[in-house]
């Protein structure tokens, strides 16, 4: 198991290298630069800015410089947030995004799994239609619609919770963003769990279990749920990475100081170092999450083993 883990981690290095290289050059071929804005700069001043960020060097040189710095763990200075390095920005934002994202996934599992299971057991019943109908709505309504509605209804009109702000992570400030972020996940997980559960309930070993005379409750709890959860678990890996780095809408609408917004804002501002930093960070997160998922597999399904 340990050597498998190490092997996977080593294999991640070339993957990351390719991701970094492609994003570096893709970012640079995009039209428009970091200093293109409403106020067009005089050539002298643009030259100073380019020199300050080494953008006046040939592209291959810049690439080598970037890779060299990266080896030393230095993501470089942000073009826009000049008082901070990209590493500082990510390190400040990550715990916040992790808290919001983690809570949202947890909530999604706590609600989504039971809903999916209930719908599968009572297939084609009112419960099933109700759950799946709601889930479909949850998937169809994007969070840039849900979040402002939440803020308006619960924050402004009812005034039960703050309409936004982080306030050091106080729980009233957490509720709306976490719920808004989890709704789509609840819907996905419920649907996935339902489909997988139905498939599992139709498989041979369940038939055998029923033939042995086990009660339906025992069949479901002891035999069906664990294998049925496999697709959900494999979905969770990328979902967690995505929810942490990609909750840009939620972070912007509720004013949460996480890293989600850096990716989109960085790309729009052509803040090359910030985008690259987020990409590398996201890449590492995906690799780690996928690894954890694979290791979880063997815990859920004894047929899966990672031998050396």
């Amino acid at each position, binding site marked *: 198991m340990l050597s498998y883990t190490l092997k996977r981690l080593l294999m991640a290095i070339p993957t990351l290298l390719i991701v970094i290289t492609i994003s570096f050059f893709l970012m640079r071929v*995009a*039209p*428009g*630069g*970091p200093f*293109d*804005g*409403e*106020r*067009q*700069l*005089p*050539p*002298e*001043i643009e*030259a*100073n*800015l380019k*020199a*300050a960020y080494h953008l006046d060097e040939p592209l291959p040189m810049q690439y080598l410089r970037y890779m060299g710095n990266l080896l030393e763990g230095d993501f470089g200075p*942000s073009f*826009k*947030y*000049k*008082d*901070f390095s990209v590493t500082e*920005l990510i390190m*400040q*934002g990550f715990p916040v995004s992790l808290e919001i994202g983690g809570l949202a996934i947890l909530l999604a599992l706590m609600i989504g799994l039971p809903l999916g299971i209930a719908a599968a057991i009572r297939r084609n019943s009112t419960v099933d239609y109700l759950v799946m109908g709601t889930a479909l709505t949850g998937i169809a309504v994007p969070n840039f619609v849900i979040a*402002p509605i939440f*803020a*308006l209804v619960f*924050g*402004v009109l009812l*005034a039960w919770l*703050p*309409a*936004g*702000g*982080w306030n*050091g992570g106080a729980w009233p400030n957490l509720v709306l963003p976490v719920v808004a972020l989890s709704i789509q996940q609840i819907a996905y997980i419920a649907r996935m769990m339902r489909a997988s559960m139905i498939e599992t309930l139709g498989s041979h070993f369940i038939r055998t279990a029923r033939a042995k005379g086990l009660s339906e409750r025992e069949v479901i709890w002891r035999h069906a749920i664990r294998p049925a959860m496999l697709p959900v678990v494999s979905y969770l890996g990328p979902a967690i990475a995505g929810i942490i780095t990609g909750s840009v809408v939620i972070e*912007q*609408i*509720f*004013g*949460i*100081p*996480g890293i989600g*917004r850096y990716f989109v*804002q960085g790309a*729009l*501002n*052509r803040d090359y170092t910030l985008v690259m930093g987020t990409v590398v960070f996201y890449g590492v997160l995906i690799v780690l999450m996928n690894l954890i998922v694979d290791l979880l597999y063997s815990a859920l399904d004894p047929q899966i083993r990672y031998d050396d």
Partner: protein
Amino acid sequence: MAALGGLALGALASSAQAFSVNIANGAEPGTLDPQKTSGNWETRITRALFEGLVTYAADGSLVPGLAERWEISADGKTYTFHLRDAEWSDGEPITAEDAAFALRRVLEPAVANHNANLYYPIVGARAINVGEAAPASLGVETPDAHTLKIHLTQPTAWFLQALAMTEAAPLPAHAIEAAGEHWVEPGKTVSSGAFTLSEWQPQARIVIAKNPHFHAAQDVALDQATFYPIDDAGSALNRFRTGEMDIAYSSVPSSRFVWAKQNLADALRVGPLTAEYFYMFNLRDGQPLADRRVREALNLAVRREVITGQILGQGQTPSTWFVPRGTANAPGGQMAFADMPMEARLTRARQLMKAAGYGPEHPLRLTLNYNTLEDHKKIAVAVAAMWKPLGVEVALVNSEAAVHYATIRQGKFEVARYGMVATINDPFDFLGSYADDGSASRASGYHDAEYDALVARSTGELDPATRQRTLTQAQQRLLDDYALLPLYDYVSVHLVSPRLDGWQSNPMDVHPLRYLEERD
């Protein structure tokens, strides 16, 4: 330090209630180094921390700051500033050397200041900024600790405006040398303004507190201000409505304006702004708009009052001029058709198009570029519809801001939406962009030696009335050439709690916090 903290706490506790405000400030500041900022979400904070030699009053006019008074030599080339007795927030005296230090630093290539060219009038400045001379060679001298002399290469009518910008404010040389590049951090930074930086949580909040060492501290009522970075206008509006925010900048999108007018009438502040919304024409040879007749026809056909009245409806002024009328010393002059009835305008426009060789068999096909924003899109669609009766077929090209402005910079457009916001409150900021090697001239390919000469002459004229005449001539020449298609003068739209006094709408959209007061 501990004693100081105790003192401040004691002072807060003794007053019955500390006066503090929460401000929805738009974006997160990229920096609070006053010489590295690039937008008003940053200067709103740096202006509270650093006082210029000259500074802004609540109405946006210039008033003495750290300089008590100044003299300008008869030839307009030497400025002598007399600094008042004032202290940095650490108790060190603010000297003329600090003022000279700041002017040298703003021109250093490594600081890469965005507006450094505004200081090029100072002797030796450009050479320093392009790295050809040492900062020490700048034409400033400090005969004594309270006197700063600035030598210009030529008289420059708008120079005081440039000095009022936070990038020119005296800097604490001693603190920067001690703390290094990242000297503007809570605990490290030293300020000269009405406030000091007490907390900065990136993306969450920035807190500033009253500076007891400020030279006019006895007139400052506000004890503390907290700036929240809220990029989403709807969120800023929500948090203003819940009472969490006392001031919300740019928080009312045009789609919510009517609603805000009905429901937040006592908080809504609308005022003219030194900013112009216009369409830039590509005037290079071979381009369809190289033909003056076509440019005039396109201008004739646009009903600007439809755009400001029906699409925007926030009080923008339809313009047939380039320099916003709210700008200080705004010149006169407007496009010749301004008072013609619409019917006559359209008839003339059709004649012009025909003369230029366009007709039903040979329609003019144009691309119109705009950057992503709902209002820009609506305006572009409306303008395209207004051009249609002339037989103009418009293809709309939408791109995000960075791409849009890169396209303009490279001159790869025919007609492009442009928003020009003044950096200094002077017509030069607008007219200068179309002169010589200005940004608009480079992008549009506009070159007119006589226009350039008029603009250059206006800069050197010290008598306001003479200067006004020259500026009017320059603007009229640009407009008679139909070098661009002006649409409207912007307005600023903000929300300010009715409990606050001392916040005034003004064309430069500057709102120094030192003048804020609590209404009884």
